[in-house]
């Protein structure tokens, strides 16, 4: 059948209808877990596997707060490989290039289903090529929390890396040699998984404050190292020096100012890319010049936002994940640097998720089409290269959603007639800013009206497509294999799109 963004979805699966269709549904909650006995402390992973009886067809989850420095998923993957446990389902909140041991598990049929929000590196490559025997489900950060709390994603065992744990089984992310900051993506796993294992390299007597409540924790596994905290740094802590990126960022900040979004008590979120950081810098300059104090910034938090909090330019930061070490130490010491769970961040069924309070968000795109649908899941050839993360959550929640991107990346136009994969429905995307022009979604008549007599180079999105084709020529149509290897799941649990195997030779 064809869903609400015009994509084919196989029979038997709930098709996406519209981004606000969840408003017609009731929140579904399974019971939070009840621990049967005292938390048990173990010091080797074999014992953990033995006592939990980890076996075929179970679902095992992880968080990705240590990002590319995480060793817990590697450790668990290695043990699965040793025991040759088959047909497991993995549900990590994201997958990074360093999770190399997962590659063989996929190829050998140890892991057959994967449910995640983002993936890249070798795991993405082998899944793109069709090695995963079951299906990949790509959903959003808020959607993952919804899936767990509703029982749509049943987790048998959650392995939660916790930089510090106390003798009562409580955990915190901002203390210890592997401190990585907030642990927002793990809270649903903690509360709803059948069994919870905190994995730590730092044990203390008692934590006065904790993020992970020991009442949900069955086991604590003490290891030498849960990871390298340097690996959390996204590599995007510096503002772009690329003149095109700077131009886009400047135009974006000027446009935000022109339409009156940079005002007292406003709220914002950006990605952690170099161009996004440049937007943050230009917005900061406008705020300082006009003596504006913002209400809050949210998301993955970087030093740029920490500086603004410390400089009194924003009152609060809502942080689901720290993107650099400055954010980690800020979270540890500043009471206005507030941790939020993935559910509080973007679960559509939360009463007032943070994403719904945002005045504007600045996001990226691999592709955007004439209906403003955005793809950040695959590249133009169909290779998996990312995923929504919080993209679709905040695009829906925010008052104004802006996509910033060069019109042409490596000689490939980013505007397409149809995107390869729909990650975020175009109904939630308002403005596209490129170096050669700006397009406004026709449904935002208010924004179009405001910008009509401005000096900004406003075009229809089809005109931007034409401009890019004049420069690059019309690219050849990319064929994908017929085999469906996975799905893009919208935050409400419906299906936005199918992901197909990359055709041989791409």
């Amino acid at each position: 059948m064809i869903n609400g963004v015009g994509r084919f979805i196989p029979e038997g699966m709930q098709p996406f209808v519209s981004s606000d269709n969840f408003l017609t549904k009731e929140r579904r909650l399974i019971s939070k877990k009840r621990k049967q006995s005292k938390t048990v402390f173990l010091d080797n992973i074999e014992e953990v596997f033995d006592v939990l009886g980890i076996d075929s067809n179970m679902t095992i989850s992880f968080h990705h707060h240590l990002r590319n420095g995480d060793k817990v998923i590697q450790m668990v993957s290695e043990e699965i490989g040793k025991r040759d446990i088959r047909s497991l389902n993995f549900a990590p909140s994201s997958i990074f290039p360093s999770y190399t041991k997962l590659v063989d598990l996929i190829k050998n049929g140890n892991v057959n289903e994967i449910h995640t929000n983002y993936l890249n590196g070798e795991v993405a490559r082998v899944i793109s090529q069709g090695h995963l025997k079951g299906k990949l489900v790509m959903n959003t950060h808020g959607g993952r929390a919804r899936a767990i709390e509703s029982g749509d994603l049943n987790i048998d065992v959650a392995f939660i890396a916790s930089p510090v744990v106390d003798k009562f089984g409580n955990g915190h992310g901002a203390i210890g040699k592997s401190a990585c900051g907030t642990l927002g993506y793990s809270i649903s796993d903690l509360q709803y998984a059948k069994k919870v294992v905190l994995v730590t390299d730092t044990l203390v007597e008692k934590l006065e404050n904790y993020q992970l409540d020991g009442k949900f924790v069955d086991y604590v596994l003490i290891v030498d190292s849960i990871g390298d905290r340097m690996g959390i740094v996204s590599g995007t802590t510096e503002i772009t020096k690329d003149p095109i990126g700077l131009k886009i960022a400047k135009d974006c900040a000027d446009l935000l100012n022109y339409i009156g979004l940079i005002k007292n008590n406003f709220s914002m979120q950006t990605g952690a890319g170099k161009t996004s950081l440049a937007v943050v810098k230009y917005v900061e300059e406008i705020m300082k010049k006009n003596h504006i104090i913002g209400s809050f910034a949210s998301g993955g938090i970087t030093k740029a936002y920490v500086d603004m909090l410390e400089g009194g330019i924003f009152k609060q930061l809502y942080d689901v994940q720290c993107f650099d070490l400055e954010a980690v130490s800020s979270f540890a010491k500043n009471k206005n640097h507030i941790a939020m769970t993935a559910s509080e961040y973007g679960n559509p069924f939360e009463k007032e998720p943070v994403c719904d309070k945002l005045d504007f968000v600045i996001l990226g795109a691999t592709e955007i089409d004439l209906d403003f649908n955005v793809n950040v899941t695959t590249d133009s050839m169909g290779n998996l290269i990312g995923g929504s993360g919080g993209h679709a959550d905040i695009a829906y929640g925010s008052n104004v959603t802006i996509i910033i991107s060069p019109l042409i990346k490596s000689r490939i136009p980013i505007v397409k007639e149809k995107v390869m994969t729909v990650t975020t429905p175009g109904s939630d995307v308002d403005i596209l800013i490129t170096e050669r022009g700006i397009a406004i979604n026709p449904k935002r008549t208010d924004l179009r009206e405001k910008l009509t007599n401005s000096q900004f180079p406003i075009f229809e999105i089809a005109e931007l497509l034409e401009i890019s084709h004049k420069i690059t020529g019309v690219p050849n149509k990319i064929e994908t294999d017929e085999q469906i290897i996975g799905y893009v799941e919208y935050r409400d649990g419906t299906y936005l799109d199918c992901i197909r195997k990359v055709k041989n030779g791409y």
Partner: protein
Amino acid sequence: MFRSLLFIPGNNPSMLQNADVFLADAIIFDLEDAISINEKNNARNLVKNYLVTSSVLPNQVILRVNSINTEWFKKDIELLKTNKIDYLLIPKLDKLNLLGVEEYLNSFEKDNNLEETKIIALVETARGVNDLPLFAENKRIIALMLGAEDLASDLQIKRTETGEEIFYARSKIIYAAVDYNLIAIDTPYTNINNLEGLIKDATYAANLGMKAKVCIHPNQLEVVNKVFSPSEQEIKWAKEVIKISQEKPGSGAFQFQGKMIDKPILDRAEKILVKAKQFNLM
């Protein structure tokens, strides 16, 4: 007419591809100082292919060729055959060099059935500064540009933030430009990370009489455009002055806002409006 001109190195494909998106009034594709000896041929080929194949070019295209005294000059001039170049920027121009350039261009244009190529004179030697009255009247020349870095090297002096050492050269260029109805273009401000310094330097040059400035990074364009554009107040003032003068034709001098308005002031108001229209400021 220019306010800002941006140098783009000829061997940088991504900059070439995006040359038309920057805020510069003109782009200078550089085959000279920004290009190492080993890259000269590559840069020339790249610029040539870009000019021939690109569907979107900057509003005004300038090519900085290598000096006439180099082995690359004649090869660089071949790019005129693309018919996409509005002006040549000739480095180290003085009276003698101009003679050589003109002689070669006359012959090249005739052989290739090209129209007369206009030149921006890059004045960056002591001789160039001294020769200004001797070559500024040449009919090919439309603008004089100061190149202070090479000039400082020629003079064996250091460049300073305040620019006292180039006051004489700036003044000579400005006076020659006004005398021969040319555009006086100021030397680039080389600290690309110091926008405050750029504002001061550009404002100072504009107050002396420079009409445009060269930029070496796209980030400098917004400041330079602003400094060399009439302000909103100036445009408003000029509109009112012209309106009153049109309401009282032949009345000679008149008072406006407590100040005497006579012919020189009217001329200034007209120039402000011409510039404002040219750059879509009104």
